[in-house]
């Protein structure tokens, strides 16, 4: 079982084809994950894992749902 990744707005093009079942390495963190996805850390405003706020150093476990959200302020 892998993890599920969701990238919002300007981050959507970085979503891998296997985002619904992405392989997570043992000891994977958000920081190591987004490095693999090629997303600069500064491009992310909000990270959440399983609907709770998370951070770059948060660990990722099999079955987690990861959301990555950029700065969004339009009205």
């Amino acid at each position, binding site marked *: 079982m892998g993890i599920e990744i969701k990238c919002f*707005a300007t981050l*959507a093009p970085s979503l891998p084809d296997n985002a619904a079942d992405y392989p997570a390495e043992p000891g994977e963190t958000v920081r190591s994950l987004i490095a693999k996805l090629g997303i600069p850390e500064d491009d992310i*405003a909000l990270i959440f894992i399983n*609907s709770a706020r998370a951070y770059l150093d948060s660990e990722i476990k099999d079955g987690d749902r990861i*959301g990555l*959200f950029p*700065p969004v*302020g*339009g*009205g």
Partner: protein
Amino acid sequence: MAESPDAAIRRLASQAPLPQGGQGLVLSPEAVAEIAAGTGLPGCGIEARALELDILPTRYLRNMHGITPGDQIRLLRGSVAQVGLGGLGGTLFEQLLRLGVGTLRVADGDSFEASNLNRQALCDMTTLGQSKAESAQRTAARVNPSATVDARHEFLTRDTLPGFLAGCDLAIDALGGLTHRLILQQCAAEAGIPLVTGALAGWTGYVGVVMPGQPGPAQFMGQDNGAEEALGCPAPSVNMVATLMAAEAVRILRGEPSPLAGGMILIDLKQLTFETVRL
């Protein structure tokens, strides 16, 4: 001796069929305007008093009973301070007027330009070049003259926001861009009132409710402008976010806790997903 507001309300009320069946006493918008002109009282106060007398203002018949008469009284006696009258702000303003929120204090220092036409409810070919505040004042007179509207043509600052928020029950962040959102969140917290906030870019958006002292989106979204510069602000996203903000505003004004307090709902209209996250 001049007629009392209660006597005028009772005299001008009439029997009418009610949407849920049966007959009841109603008060037409024209009657509300007549009593307001005769007594010098705001229409929203007359409507709230009519509801206390079990007379339903016709204008709000179709709010019932999604909004109960008791809730409608709370809305009519409620006050909202809204910053921004652009995309989110225009739609929110119209919804708050139609909902019957009694007192609306709104501010925007901009005037309408052609690139606002894709989404801003108060912007049309007749209002191009007009100040957004003036347009709001005119819209209020057309849509719901019972509302007490104070529309200010100014960009609020750290110095002027506290006075703008003072005395209101709720603050609404309908700003465009990220630059001023954190200051507004801080000022709302200092004023001790809840803040309803929302923003969007392309087909993605979010809505949050920040109770005083709680974390809010402005703390981590930064103050440089965001993804909206690349992705734009199409009308369906704007109206979806504004609608969710209006629904939370009603919930707070009627005295219920918001499920979004301390969190935010993330909306993606491209993949059609809605997810509430805790902050």
